[in-house]
């Protein structure tokens, strides 16, 4: 328990430290256009709608939410694969929101990405050697003659057989392909790795191998991770802090263990209560918050709190008119809710030792 307390207050103690990545009021709208010649914008998809986030060196921040909550869009905005509609991006204290492609280049070396589908994100016509070696060729960090040796070293590092240098992606299993993706991301010795659902396409037994690999690499190279997934148990396992997103906004942010014990936002509670636990007795004790309906359209998000139409605790009119902001509930735990959950609302005894 005492360890927990330290963990909670950590972000405050870090004020003298510059965050590696800082997002201020990031919005990303995708215009919806109608008409063939005279295209006019008839609306916007509010994919990300005002997100502040800081990622400190060496930590793992988890980003969790359902399909369409904007978590992948946010990752692509950080990578500047999408231009932010509003807000500011900082890397190591320097703003890069409006950087040109050329000025982005050194930054791209330091921030790498791992994708969900290891088959779709690898070029099927290239050998594994040339896929992992590609970053060297683009950024010219290693001379041509040395590329093969470097690539084989990387392959060994991620648990691939270096002799398979000349094989093609289809000759590997899903887990091995994800290792190829990890090796490619590591090639330029990045500081930040954004992993977008890196294990959700894999078997549970293989997921564990990849999660352990990512953990080892973090320790060895002092990497910082932004770990995006819809599976709260995986996110909680790998992350120091977890941000929960709903319809383009962060609704709660806290260390994983705290989220599990005391979720404050009813949406976090619903997510938690839906996660399967491989323990029938414990699962039976869990109180379920069942959400009605689907996530509303991000084209015209609900007024006030975006979660209010599905929220079991919503009180009208407050929740439909006043938009809640992120407030501190416990040290280190922020939630945006007018009527937060009581402590231990989901798990009475919770297998957590006190």
């Amino acid at each position, binding site marked *: 328990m005492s360890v927990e307390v330290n963990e909670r207050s950590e972000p405050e103690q870090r004020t003298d430290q510059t965050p590696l990545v800082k997002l201020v009021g990031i919005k990303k709208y995708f215009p919806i256009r109608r008409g063939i010649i005279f295209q006019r914008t008839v609306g916007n998809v509010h994919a990300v709608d005002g997100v502040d986030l800081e990622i400190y060196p060496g930590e793992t921040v988890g980003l969790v939410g359902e399909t369409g909550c904007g978590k992948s869009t946010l990752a692509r905005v950080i990578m500047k694969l999408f231009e932010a509609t509003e807000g500011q991006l900082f890397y190591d204290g320097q703003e890069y929101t409006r950087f040109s492609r050329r000025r982005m280049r050194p930054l791209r070396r330091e921030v790498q990405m791992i994708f969900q589908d290891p088959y779709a994100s690898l070029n099927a016509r290239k050998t594994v050697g040339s896929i992992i070696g590609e970053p060297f060729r683009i950024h010219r960090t290693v001379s041509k003659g040395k590329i093969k040796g470097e690539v084989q070293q990387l392959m060994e590092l991620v648990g691939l057989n270096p002799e398979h240098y000349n094989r093609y992606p289809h000759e590997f299993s899903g887990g*091995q392909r994800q290792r190829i993706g990890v090796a490619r991301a590591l090639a330029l010795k990045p500081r930040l790795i954004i992993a977008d659902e890196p294990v959700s396409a894999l*078997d549970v037994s293989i997921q564990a191998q990849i999660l352990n690999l990512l953990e080892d690499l973090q320790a060895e190279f002092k990497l910082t991770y932004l770990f995006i997934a819809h599976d709260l148990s*995986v996110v909680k*396992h790998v992350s120091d802090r977890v941000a929960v997103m709903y319809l383009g906004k962060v609704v709660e942010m806290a260390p994983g*263990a705290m989220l599990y014990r005391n979720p404050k936002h009813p949406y976090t509670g619903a997510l938690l209560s839906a996660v399967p*636990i491989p323990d*029938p007795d414990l699962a039976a004790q869990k109180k*379920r918050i069942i959400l009605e309906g*689907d996530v509303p359209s991000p084209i015209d998000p609900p007024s006030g709190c975006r979660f209010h139409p599905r929220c079991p605790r919503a009180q009208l009119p407050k929740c439909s008119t006043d938009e809640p902001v992120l407030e501190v509930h416990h040290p280190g735990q922020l939630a945006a809710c007018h009527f937060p959950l009581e402590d231990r609302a989901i798990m009475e005894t919770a297998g957590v*030792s006190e």
Partner: protein
Amino acid sequence: MPEPLLEIKNLKVHFPTDDGLVKAVDGVNLTLYPGQTLGVVGESGSGKSVTWLTVMGLVTKKEAIIEGEILFRGQDLLKLPVDELRNIRGSKMGMVFQDPMSSLHPFFKVGDQIVEAIRAHQRMSKREAMDLAIDMLRRVGIPRPEERARQYPHEFSGGMRQRAMIAMALVLNPDVLIADEPTTALDVTVQAQILDLIDRLEQEFNAAVVIITHDLGVVAEHADDILVMYAGKPVEFGERRDIYYGAHHPYTWGLLQSIARLDEAERERLRPIRGLPPSLIFVPPGCAFHPRCPYAFDRCSKESPELIPENGHHASACFLPLADKERIFKEEVLQRS
């Protein structure tokens, strides 16, 4: 004991390929009773899906060498002529797949697709069939079913599509519902809704349900019995509590230890199963799991263990003495939680 609904006896499904014989299913024995929910668990390539595709008649003797018996109410499905099998498949047994987008036809309205399924098996006017389809959509929890029936699959969300698939599988009131990774492509909140729905429908229709998954977490709340498969063979079978609170097979231990648990007190290192699932052409001799098993000894690479019931009907195919299995489970597997 009630009359068994489905009995699988020594089922083998082998696919001839240019590289050799793929032994996808290699000796499965199983009995399924009405109202029973069976969880079938294993990694990709364990034969868990092929077994049930064969039961549904979706893998046939045209593409595979099939041996053994599949008795549905005493009738061997493998010996039935195609048109009689077609009567049973669809009306007596329904199947739901992982990806509902690829199992619904994108060009036809959802309601029409369900109507087609009904009229393939029952003489019924289109209007009656549509009423039945709409009623079924309502029962699986689709709001405004009259409107929804006139929409195309792309207008449905993932969870709604999976509900529509379940509606289609259940509309003829089958005795067996086979759900192959029904929630793998869905968000956790939707996953919970779909699994609850399957539970509820099982009671409503008194059907036997088979849930195929790679994740022991998914079936913890829903299955009565669990069958664990590895390299085409069942390696452990037991009641739910037998598996979660006293599993006997090292492979099952590995599956349990691989799961990142929400209820872990502190961040503990996951203990994955080392290595990869074997090639089904060159299956390791002896116990197929021995190259990945931390407890393997001499005998494991020479002899193939049988699935033997150890107490009651909890059975495992492993040479370790029972006392060792119980000790290892308590000391090494359970300690995490």
